[in-house]
């Protein structure tokens, strides 16, 4: 059967809807020892800021049932080194569009690069986004306004609709690439935040970032993380993520990249059926480096088995239960 798995996100064509979640995949170099990055729809890079960040003290992570907490604190080498080293690596590694053809016999798009950006303040976001403006290898920008581990900025922007609209339009003005706003799930009404981002001019949404959580080491009677709280990710949060994607797909018109606990093709298909145009695999890559590939292959197998010729038939297709 000829099948089309390619999707369009904010005007950028992906060869398939599967990418890697920011911060769980570095810039891809380490994972490229385990599989060919050219199989992915896109690589989403670790959050980058205008200058290098130290991040939080250790312990930065701990395991929880079907998930983990992290408080990396957005350690990163800064946008300059990122451009010179990480984007260069991706340029060298990712092949150009090929004629090997999607179902329709068309062009098979190359693996795209989505650069995740963080900042302590509006100015820092703008500065970083401007420095990325001339980078041809940055196809899309994903703006993290929801990292729970940064005191200033970060989560504050992400939970207040007015703040979200403001930062979105400021970034939108400064950016040359399409802008995807990455939302925090730690809110009463995610659709309000999604609509604010859309109103601010966002080209797309990524959801969800991590749920704020805490673990206590009862033997030591101390927090398990030096930062006290951390972000919960992994299969544990998948039902919350699917719910939020579903809610927002009904509330906004811009495309949604769904993430949160995806480990299998079924998990990814849930997101897609809930309304996501594409998906990211995060924590599950820590359990098996090749998870994203297995998800791609599993979606392909599902489409084959169910005679779905175009993945887009599945986007938002969920219906009520009937006996």
């Amino acid at each position, binding site marked *: 059967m000829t099948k089309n798995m390619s999707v369009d996100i904010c005007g950028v064509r992906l060869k398939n809807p599967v990418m890697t979640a920011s911060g769980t995949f570095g810039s891809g170099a*380490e994972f490229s020892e385990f599989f060919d990055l050219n199989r992915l729809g896109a690589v989403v890079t670790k959050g980058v800021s205008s200058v*290098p960040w130290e991040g939080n003290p*250790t312990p*930065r*992570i701990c395991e929880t*049932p079907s*998930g983990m907490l992290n408080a990396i604190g957005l350690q990163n080498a800064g946008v300059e080194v990122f451009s010179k080293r990480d984007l260069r690596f991706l340029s060298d590694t990712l092949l150009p569009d090929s004629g090997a053809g999607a179902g329709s016999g068309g062009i098979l798009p190359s693996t795209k690069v989505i650069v995740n950006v963080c900042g302590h303040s509006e100015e820092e976001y703008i500065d970083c986004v401007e420095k990325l403006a001339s980078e041809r290898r940055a196809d899309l920008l994903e703006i993290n306004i929801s990292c729970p581990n940064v005191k200033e900025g970060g989560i504050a922007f992400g939970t207040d609709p007015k703040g979200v609209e403001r930062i979105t339009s400021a970034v939108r003005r400064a950016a040359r690439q399409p802008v995807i706003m990455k939302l925090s799930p730690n809110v009463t009404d995610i659709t309000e935040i999604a609509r604010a981002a859309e109103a601010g001019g966002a080209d797309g949404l990524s959801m969800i970032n991590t749920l704020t959580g805490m673990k206590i080491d009862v033997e030591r009677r101390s927090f398990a993380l030096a930062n006290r709280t951390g972000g919960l990710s992994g299969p544990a949060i998948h039902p919350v993520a699917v719910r939020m994607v579903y809610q927002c797909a009904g509330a906004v018109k811009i495309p949604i990249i769904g993430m949160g606990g995806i480990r299998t093709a079924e998990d990814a298909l849930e997101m897609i059926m809930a309304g996501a145009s594409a998906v990211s695999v995060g924590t599950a890559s*820590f359990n098996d*480096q090749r998870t994203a590939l297995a998800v791609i292959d599993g979606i392909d197998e599902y489409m084959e088995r169910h005679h779905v010729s175009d993945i887009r038939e599945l986007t938002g297709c969920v219906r009520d239960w009937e006996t």
Partner: protein
Amino acid sequence: MKYTQKAKVLGCETIGKNIYSLRLQADDIAGSAAPGQFVSVYSNDSARMLPRPISVCEADGERGILRLVFRIAGAGTEEFSKLREDDEVRLTGPLGNGFPLGEAARRRVLLVGGGIGIPPMLETAKRLMPEADVRAVLGFRDELFLAEDFPCEVTIATEDGSAGTKGNVLDAIRAQKIEADVIFACGPAVMLRALKKYALEQGIGCWVSMEEKMACGIGACLSCVCRSVQTDEHSQVKNKRVCTEGPVFRSADIEI
């Protein structure tokens, strides 16, 4: 080259209180593992997402056999302790840098292992001999394990004095007046801290194997950093990844 592979369990037996020795058929990894490197061991329980880093205790490249020795510290290691012959377990490795064997060539090397830090010193001893002049100091709480497997001269310290010098490894080094040109060590942070100081006093080189919680094990997630004295080239800050720049560091280069 790092491999992710299913390994077949050849045997798993207890060699001390809560200490287990696991032998695995893991051709690719065993074939390329160096002493001081580690492997990520994945749980068969789907609720446990993160790998458990375990040091290479012995690697028989020819027969493709890997030996891991671990202590039950929680649910993951408890699960591994129950592995039976023919069970399967998934591994990634070999990971990290390992001990700088070149630094030991034709010199007097002191291998120091404390508690569950002893296992990596075994393969290290085997690879260094007979070229280097190798001596091991092993510290235990009470019961000994693995000590008899070492191919070199072994000095024992026990906290309760039931064998060897009563006290810690440094007490034993001092009591035995052991001299060395270079130290390779693995064990609890307090021990490494003391060795770092001792090496500085003695003006000798000292490499230590560090521990930190890990998520990816391959350098991508920045979970596992330790503080470094100099700005690290990769991170551009004073953090080094234990899984990649380590787990073995020159003790003078990092904060312990």
